[in-house]
């Protein structure tokens, strides 16, 4: 979620980025020392991550999706994917999984702690952890989060998740750590989460300004990093999002556009909403293709994969397990197609976007299956044209730069002509 690799972060560093890098460095130090310190780790997923619950047990979260995207940014995933495919993993399946498996087969340490299978919004998660369990014989706690097929969370769904927290997840954490569930500590963590979430939402909604001070897709993967990964509920996260908000407020005061790989965007020409995960192998190149056109993402759905906060949800310390259930049920990949279409249409209007871009990722049926229908529906409802490109997450074979560049260039030309036509 948060590509913390120096080469990938924007040209100049804001205070919040330095703070985030330090937070992540400290977290990796704790992970590296876990064997000696006896700290327990839990492998889990960004969507539906129960970070506060893990931290209340002093369990360190490890997020294999983030390992995979970071490997992609370091140019390692072609090799990892090839290794996994050699072991019989099909070329048709998710490249996060193959990158993770290939990484471990290339001499990296496999998971040692608990596999917390937060089964939210993606079928592949179940197979991913079954594969890891078979290989590394780790204990697994399964949390099945039912799908919002009808666009709402029912009592039956919430009760089911809470019951599993009580009867499956918490007992497994108690067993793995030898400690008792501490609800007061969990409440304290959840209260801090809500504070950080308020500031994150402020930052994301700052893109309603013209010009937008942030890029809500490429830039947002840095901003959501702490809250989507190991830090939601920590004082570090509270401080990070307070500092980030102050920085963005400063950019608005100065009338600055967003940070881009080549420094601040001089002139915002096009405001777009983006649907779908980014490509990580050519992340900077992909970002530059838009930034060079003066195109800024003002809202994105990928920045909601680890939780949808801008529709009002906040973690509620007064109902700890219910709020964790509500959070899991509300992640973007757990939303129905009609709900996703409503949200995208709303973003196009509320953020005064000129159009929207769907980056359809080959690996991910959860996002991709139905995106062509989303394209047509959002165009019809918003009256704004959509662009549709196809890439992959971490398999460099599926990022055809020339093709994507051509498509984006012709799309922005079309937007420009529409604008000229409208003003003449």
């Amino acid at each position: 979620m948060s590509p913390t690799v120096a080469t990938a972060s924007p040209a100049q560093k804001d205070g919040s980025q330095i703070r985030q890098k330090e937070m992540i460095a400290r977290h990796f130090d704790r992970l590296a020392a876990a064997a000696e310190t006896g700290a327990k780790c839990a492998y889990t997923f960004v969507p539906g991550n129960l970070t506060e619950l893990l931290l209340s047990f002093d369990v360190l979260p490890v997020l294999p999706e983030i390992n995979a995207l970071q490997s992609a940014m370091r140019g390692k995933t072609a090799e990892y994917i090839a290794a996994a495919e050699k072991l019989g993993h099909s070329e048709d399946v998710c490249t996060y999984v193959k990158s993770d498996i290939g990484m471990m087969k290339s001499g990296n340490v496999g998971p040692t702690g608990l596999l917390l299978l937060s089964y939210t919004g993606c079928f592949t998660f179940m197979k991913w952890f079954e594969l890891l369990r078979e290989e590394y014989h780790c204990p697994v706690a399964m949390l099945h989060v039912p799908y919002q097929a009808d666009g709402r969370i029912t009592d039956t769904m919430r009760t089911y998740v809470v019951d599993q927290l009580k009867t499956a997840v918490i007992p497994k954490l108690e067993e793995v750590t030898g400690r008792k569930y501490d609800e007061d500590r969990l409440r304290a963590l959840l209260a801090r989460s809500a504070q950080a979430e308020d500031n994150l939402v402020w930052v994301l909604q700052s893109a309603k300004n013209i010009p937008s001070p942030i890029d809500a897709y490429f830039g947002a993967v840095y901003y959501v990093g702490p809250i989507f990964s190991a830090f939601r509920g920590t004082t570090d996260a509270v401080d990070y999002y307070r500092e980030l908000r102050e920085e963005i407020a400063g950019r608005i005061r100065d009338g600055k556009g967003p940070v881009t790989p080549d420094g601040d965007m001089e002139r915002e020409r096009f405001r777009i909403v983006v649907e779908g995960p980014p490509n990580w192998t050519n992340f900077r190149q992909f970002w530059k293709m838009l930034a060079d056109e003066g195109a800024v993402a003002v809202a994105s759905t990928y920045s909601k994969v680890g939780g949808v906060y801008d529709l009002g949800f906040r973690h509620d310390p007064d109902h700890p397990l219910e709020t964790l259930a509500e959070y899991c049920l509300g992640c973007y990949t757990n939303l129905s197609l009609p709900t996703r279409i409503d949200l995208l249409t709303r973003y196009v209007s509320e953020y005064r976007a000129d159009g929207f871009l769907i980056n359809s990722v080959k690996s991910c049926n959860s996002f991709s299956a139905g995106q062509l229908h989303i394209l047509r529906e959002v165009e019809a409802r918003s009256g704004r044209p959509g662009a549709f490109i196809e890439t992959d997450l971490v398999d460099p074979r599926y990022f055809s730069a020339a093709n994507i560049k051509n498509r984006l260039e012709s799309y922005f030309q079309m937007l420009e002509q529409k604008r000229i036509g409208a003003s003449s």
Partner: protein
Amino acid sequence: MAGRVSEDPGLTALVARADSLFRDQALATVREWKARTGGLAVGFLPIYVPRELLHAQGILPVGLMGGRPDLEIIKGDAYYQSYICHLPRSTIELGLNGTYAALDGVLFPSICDVIRNLSGIWQMLFPKVLVHYLDVPQNFEPAVGGAFYRRDLESLARALEAKGARPLTDESLCHSIALYNEDRRLVRELYALRRREPWKVPTHELYVVLRAALLLPVEESTPLFAEYLALVSADESRRPQDQARVLVAGSFCEQPPLALIKTLERSGCYIVEDDFVQVHRFIRSDIPAGGDPMERLVTALLTDAVASPTRYIGNGVKGEDLEQRLAGSGAEGVLFCAPSFCDPALLDQPMAVRAAERAGVPWTAFKYAENSGQFQVIREQAGTFADSIKLWSGA
């Protein structure tokens, strides 16, 4: 179905009828049933739904399994990128071209993200049709996953009633469970006969009968299975051949073209175990009678369902089920036969391969699409595989 079926005219006639039902892509049979009974017809996608519940409310459950190779996809391709399996495309085509107009509802079992997202598209394309996403539990504790599944089935029953179906009663559900127990028992018997004497039950023929049954009310599918079982058991004109006994795995959703199944058999394989049309065998034994029938239906799913790749194996060992099926069927080889881009089958396959290797059984793998028309490569691959099995088993 071309070629001589059997010397028994009764069997030939039965297979011809099953074949015409299998080819009835326009669901004429369903329309006739609705006209005759005034009941509702509710479609369901793979793999499994509790048909007893629909039947108990006077509904005709209709198994939808995508399109055959001769279905021309005109609109369906506009909904899916090239790297998504074919089934949703043909399903949408059959929806948009009016074929499924006779369906008052469609159930979408939670087997993968493609079917999951398709339920959202169906809501938008066919707002008058009842759409229900059956979020089958991955927690198998009665008080947790069982309670959740029961509440989901109860809400489905209410929705069907609001749509015009009969109210669900314990009495009607008990009766439906009994009927489907018999239906499943006969399918188990057919599979047992095929394990014992595979020459009597050619898979391409059994397959057509299983698919035909998806369009029939249980009151008609059961006699069809019974008659087919009696006729093939008695038919002495079918003689053993020197074929390799294989288990086919991975074809539980998007279906292989019938011609592919025939190709495997002509390449020297007796298919003695498979996961085709798994709704007929998803619950592995009789659902007990008596007591609270809804609780029995829920318990059957929690404790007695197939270890499908779409089902989380919490406490057991991944692949154990495949090892048992290999031992139980006497299969000498495994054909991993999965649809392209099928997440459940292809993500599961490395673990299934390990199970085959633990069992010491050779395997080979290939992919297909429901509209594949070319089987030359598969024919050679399956033929070489079958020859190698026969060579070694003969050695």
